[in-house]
């Protein structure tokens, strides 16, 4: 068995599993701060109930993110020693700052945020909530700086095959970083918006009409409705940035083989890399030229300009289409739901039913988007500096196959457990409604470990 492909699958499985949870915690931290702020301002206990429901999901997601994140920091060494040996001088400080500033901030104040409401003053508790939210966002800042540098490396020079930093500002604020960071933060916001909306829709369908359900539902729906057009605009800008710096990735995203003008927007196709053409193509004439160059006769780069140096076309092409497709669905669903909540003050049942599976739409879009950009960087691990194949370690294929199999089983089980807990918490919240005992606020205990 080939350790390279197995290591790639293992890392992809790990990072795919990992990103699901930061996608939630980054924005959920800010939503919790919003709930807390509304409670502080209005004294309305429904906001605090929403807070306590979602802080549990935050805690669970945070734990899932931490453990899968630790796994990754070890896998750099166990499977990809060539990575740190070549670009360790750049990646090292960025990762170090992530741990030092962001991760510690989250981990230290998480205890107070989760369990400290009755032990510290309300102000300190709000501050802890802020610091955790700030920490998760800062964490995303450093990680995306490193990822973007791997996509579009600047500010370094190679000496004896090892990258050395020349200009740290250029390294952190490399060309694709601002776009990728904002794109990801918005993606997290959308993931959480739809999660909260779908979770609340499930409560709604279970007959829950409590104030805390309405508060959370409206927060999720309106946040989603506001964020999705912004995301579509930012995503477009990010695409134009990619066109400038990684044209071969855009060529693969559009499945465009020849560099030419009047390139159609391919809606459906099976890209065939052997024949170097698209099969079963369904396309809008001039579409890609129009989107990428803002003119029907704009020239779009083609894959054939990059022989042996462009990513696999099929996954990049389809990853991009799935992401955009989910984005369009998000727009339709959130605006429709927004309209009903705003004008009719309620939800039609079919729409609520649709919103429940849409709770996970953010995850699908985030994964599809990351597959597009990460597979789109291949065959490079660090564009133009280090090929993925040259970074893999000397571990035998059999060992990697064994660990991969166990990871896959473990992740599948944990994902199932996570989703069933979400469902259980939604049903429990629906049953309790506004009668759930509210700790400290109403002075009745809500024991965390002995919850019944």
């Amino acid at each position, binding site marked *: 068995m080939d350790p390279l492909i197995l290591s790639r699958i293992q890392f992809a499985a790990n990072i795919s599993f990992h990103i699901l949870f930061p996608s939630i915690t980054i924005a959920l931290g800010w939503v919790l701060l919003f709930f807390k702020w509304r409670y502080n301002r209005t004294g309305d206990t429904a906001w605090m109930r929403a807070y306590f429901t979602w802080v549990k999901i935050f805690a669970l997601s945070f734990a899932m993110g*931490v453990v*899968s994140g630790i796994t990754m920091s070890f896998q750099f060494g166990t499977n990809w020693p060539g990575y740190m040996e070549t670009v360790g001088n750049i990646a090292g400080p960025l990762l170090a700052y992530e741990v030092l500033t962001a991760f510690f901030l989250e*981990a230290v104040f*998480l205890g107070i945020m989760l369990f400290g*409401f*009755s032990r510290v003053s309300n102000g300190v508790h709000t501050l802890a909530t802020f610091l955790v939210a700030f920490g998760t966002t800062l964490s995303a800042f450093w990680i995306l700086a490193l990822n973007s540098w791997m996509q579009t490396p600047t500010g370094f020079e190679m000496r004896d095959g090892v990258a050395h930093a020349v200009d740290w500002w250029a390294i952190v604020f490399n060309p694709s970083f601002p776009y990728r960071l904002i794109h990801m933060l918005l993606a997290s916001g959308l993931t959480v918006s739809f999660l909260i909306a779908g979770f609340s829709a499930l409560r709604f369908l279970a007959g829950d009409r409590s104030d805390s359900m309405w508060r959370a539902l409206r927060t999720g729906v309106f946040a989603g409705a506001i964020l999705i057009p912004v995301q579509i605009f930012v995503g477009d800008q990010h695409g134009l940035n990619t066109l400038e710096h990684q044209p071969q990735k855009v060529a693969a995203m559009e499945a465009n083989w020849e560099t030419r003008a009047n390139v159609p927007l391919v809606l459906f196709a099976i890209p065939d890399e052997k024949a170097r053409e698209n099969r079963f193509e369904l396309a809008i004439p001039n579409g890609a030229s129009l989107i990428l160059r803002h003119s029907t006769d704009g020239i779009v780069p083609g894959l054939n300009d990059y022989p042996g140096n462009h990513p696999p076309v099929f996954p990049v092409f389809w990853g991009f289409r799935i992401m955009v497709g989910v984005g369009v669905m998000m727009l339709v669903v959130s605006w429709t739901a927004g309209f009903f909540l705003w004008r009719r003050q309620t939800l039609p049942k079919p729409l609520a039913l649709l919103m429940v599976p849409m709770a996970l739409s953010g995850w699908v879009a985030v994964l599809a988007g990351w597959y597009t950009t990460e597979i789109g960087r291949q065959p490079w691990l660090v564009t133009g500096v280090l090929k993925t194949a040259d970074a893999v370690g000397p571990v035998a294929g059999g060992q990697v196959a064994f660990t991969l199999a166990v990871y896959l089983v473990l992740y599948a089980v944990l994902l199932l*457990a996570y989703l069933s807990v979400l469902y259980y918490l939604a049903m429990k919240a629906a049953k309790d409604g506004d009668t759930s005992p509210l700790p400290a606020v109403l002075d009745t205990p809500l024991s*965390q470990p002995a919850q019944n």
Partner: protein
Amino acid sequence: MTLDWPTLLPLIFAGLMGIAILVYVVLDGFDLGIGILFAAAGDHEKDTMIAAIGPFWDANETWLVLAVGLLLVAFPMAHGVILTALYIPVFLLLVGLILRGVAFDFRAKVPTHRKARWDFAFLAGSLLAALAQGYMLGVYVLGLQTGLAAFAFGLLVAVCLAAAYAAMGAAWLIYKTEGELQQKAILWLRSALVFTVLGMGAVSLATPLASPRIFARWFVFPEMLYLAPLPILSALLFLWLWRLTFRLAETGDTHSLKPFLALAAIFTLGFLGLAWSFYPFVVPERLTIWQAASATGSLGLILVGTAFVLPVMIGATIYVYRVFGGKAADLRYD
């Protein structure tokens, strides 16, 4: 040895990494130990035991991220060599940490009838992580050897480290709980201490015997004199702690923090011994800290950040321990 930055920075980072590992071992040691003690605890005690570590374990585990992070960023060459050599044990450690970490949260959120299975996952994860760490320590001490003897020695250290963590967990429970559970923890501490002594003895003997270089570092004059306090102090602390366990039951809470502090001191002494044995190697007999270090400029940049952040984080950590000080009550999301 000239005292310029290229010489000093790897040294400083080796020190920082050492501190991070030590703090991790002491702090997450009691978390993992409490997980291991789940094997002996009754159902009604498990909630209290979890409450004793609840607000802290996330931050405790972060020290491992910092330690591995420092290895990764400051000594990238060594990171690859050590972790590929320990591929399977590292994997088992990670599986253990994953199970432990998520079980902690799941057990509190699933329907009551499913709680037992997450309690088991918490125990299994903690035990697996502790065993894997012990095994890695054992194999590392032997210079990353392979073969049956190294494997057997790794297993021995694995069991002993798990016992040492259990001792830490018991000591933490003595501090954080009261009544029946506290009395039980005293008994747990006593049984676990036997294995802890055995393990430290085994590592102390094996290290010099496995490497003539390390033997020469310890058993020459006059270094032997300066180093003698390490084993002697450890032995005295063990003895004192052992006697203390017989008095703890009557004296109640007056000495409740002392077992934990004594164990932390013993761990520190053992760690200093190991550091002396292996310096200046980060991969035993293969890579020194200078050969494995990152570029000076990169290390300098990390150091600036560390110098600012670490004191703040240590202060914040102390604050959190104070907020959740005293006996562990029911852990509440409020």
